């Protein structure tokens, strides 16, 4: 029997390798970054100078109107419209996407036709179209197709600017959401459906329990972008005289001729709303990435200029 030298080895520290060590390596310098920073600083200074010294911005007018009641009401309409149009868009999008990948060729082509039409025509035109629906259909009736009608309504009385806006933005959004949802559904490996089927799950259950939860990771980030786009797209409704944020601002500067300050008021609110949404989106994204190895960077990391040391090099963008 020989004595095991294990204990000695465990307590002995490995001898330091001779020669230079990576931990003492000289970091690479980035002179290009300093030059770029200088250029940006000069440009920024000029911008700030202009913002402060140019009277035409009318900052006092901006401050005066920023939280005015009419502007708040306009902002409310913009937010309400965004929410309703997105809800319609998402529900419609899921339905259309499921139709698009269903085994029923009729459903597939109907959904395809819908998406083709709504993505192929400008949103602005669709809005005006819905606003003027009464010119096409003077009355809208509910009843048996080609049979007796139970209720007949005057189109002009029910298509308010709000309804036209909801229809125009929501139906249009449905087409875009359909493509996003479809992409998400197709990104889930077919083996997942088969595994679900093999334990006796119905198609509906496979969709709900297996496919959709996994597709969410691919659906949520672009949906967040769609919500942010929708906030801005609602500005289109000012052409059909719906008093959203932009229309309210316009109505005010048409009276006071303070065009630039009022547009700045509108822009500030759009920026506030979209910034909040951006933060929310990054939180939701992180939630759906839970359990996956790929972690998206949070909002604060995005703001930081230096990449996090803990991130593997492949996750950093190209560096200059």
């Amino acid at each position: 029997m020989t004595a095991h030298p294990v204990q000695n080895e465990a307590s002995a520290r490995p001898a330091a390798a001779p020669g230079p060590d990576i931990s003492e390596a000289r970091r690479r310098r980035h002179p290009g970054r300093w030059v770029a920073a200088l250029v940006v600083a000069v440009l920024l200074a000029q911008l700030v100078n202009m913002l402060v010294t140019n009277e035409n911005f009318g900052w006092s007018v901006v401050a005066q109107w920023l939280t005015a009641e009419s502007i708040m009401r306009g902002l409310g309409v913009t937010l309400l419209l965004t929410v309703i149009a997105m809800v319609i868009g998402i529900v419609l999008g899921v339905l259309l996407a499921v139709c698009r990948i269903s085994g029923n060729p009729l459903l597939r082509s109907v959904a395809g036709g819908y998406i083709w039409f709504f993505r192929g025509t400008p949103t602005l035109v669709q809005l005006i179209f819905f606003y003027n629906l009464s010119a096409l259909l003077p009355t809208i009736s509910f009843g048996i197709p080609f049979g007796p009608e139970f209720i007949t309504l005057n189109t002009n009385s029910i298509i308010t600017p709000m309804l036209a806006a909801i229809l125009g933005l929501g139906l249009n959004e449905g087409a875009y959401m359909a493509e996003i949802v479809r992409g998400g559904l197709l990104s889930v490996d077919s083996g997942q459906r088969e595994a679900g089927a093999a334990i006796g799950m119905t198609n509906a259950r496979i969709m709900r329990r297996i496919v959709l939860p996994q597709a969410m990771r691919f659906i949520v980030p672009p949906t967040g972008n769609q919500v942010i786009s929708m906030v801005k797209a609602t500005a289109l409704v000012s052409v059909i005289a719906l008093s959203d944020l932009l229309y309210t601002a316009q109505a005010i500067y048409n009276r006071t001729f303070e065009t630039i300050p009022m547009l700045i008021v509108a822009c500030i609110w759009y920026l506030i709303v979209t910034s909040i949404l951006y933060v929310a989106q990054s939180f939701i994204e992180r939630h759906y990435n839970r359990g996956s190895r790929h972690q998206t960077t949070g909002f604060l990391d995005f703001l930081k200029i230096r990449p996090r040391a803990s991130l593997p090099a492949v996750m950093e963008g190209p560096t200059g």
Partner: protein
Amino acid sequence: MTITATRPVLEARNVRKSFGHVEVLKGIDLEVRTGETVVVLGPSGSGKSTFLRCINLLESVDGGRILVDGNDVGYEVVDERLHELHPNEVARRRRDIGMVFQQFNLFPHMTVLENIIEGPVGVRGEKKQVAIERAKRLLEQVGLAHREDSYPRQLSGGQQQRVAIARALAMEPKLMLFDEPTSALDPELVGEVLKTMEELANEGLTMVVVTHEISFAREAADRVVFMDGGVIVEQGTPDQVIDNPQHERTRAFLARFL
């Protein structure tokens, strides 16, 4: 032996299947009795996976007939004719057929335990507590006790495949299908999965196993079936087919493993 012990769990008669113009299965006849372990061997592209997938109707069948425990999986007989069933009824009948895939196909967004009880609780409407108890027993059986809270990606391939086996067993299937369960595994992980499967075979589970593991066929199979070009070329006990093959094609195939 009792009568029920020899009743066929699987009866495939003249099963035919084409993809486009290519006939992949050209009339497969196979009977598997309760408690039997049948290993299917055959070269790549011979139609082994397709046949397995036809049994639980992941792939539609073009001709012939497949009965599992006396029932057509996708049809019912009315006036001597087969009538296609509603997909939900097909799903109900699939509960009795477990399947283990080459790529495991565990649900990555669920823990090991959730993977296993999804079928019993979600599909069969079992009490959660009962299902959890059984899931834990099954995990112990496949050598993964106390891993129920792990997510699939935290497990090795061999462990994932054993969870997939437990998930299939949780439905208490009458027939288990294995499609190359060890082909996606690193060589050192193959043994643990084969060992689990051998134990199941010894316990009397009825299994059809497609594999390239000749040693497993020799150890665990009651019968070995050799398929080539969409037909069953020969079948018999492992001794007959592996050690004393009658057909040239079987000999040529087996020669590669020597």
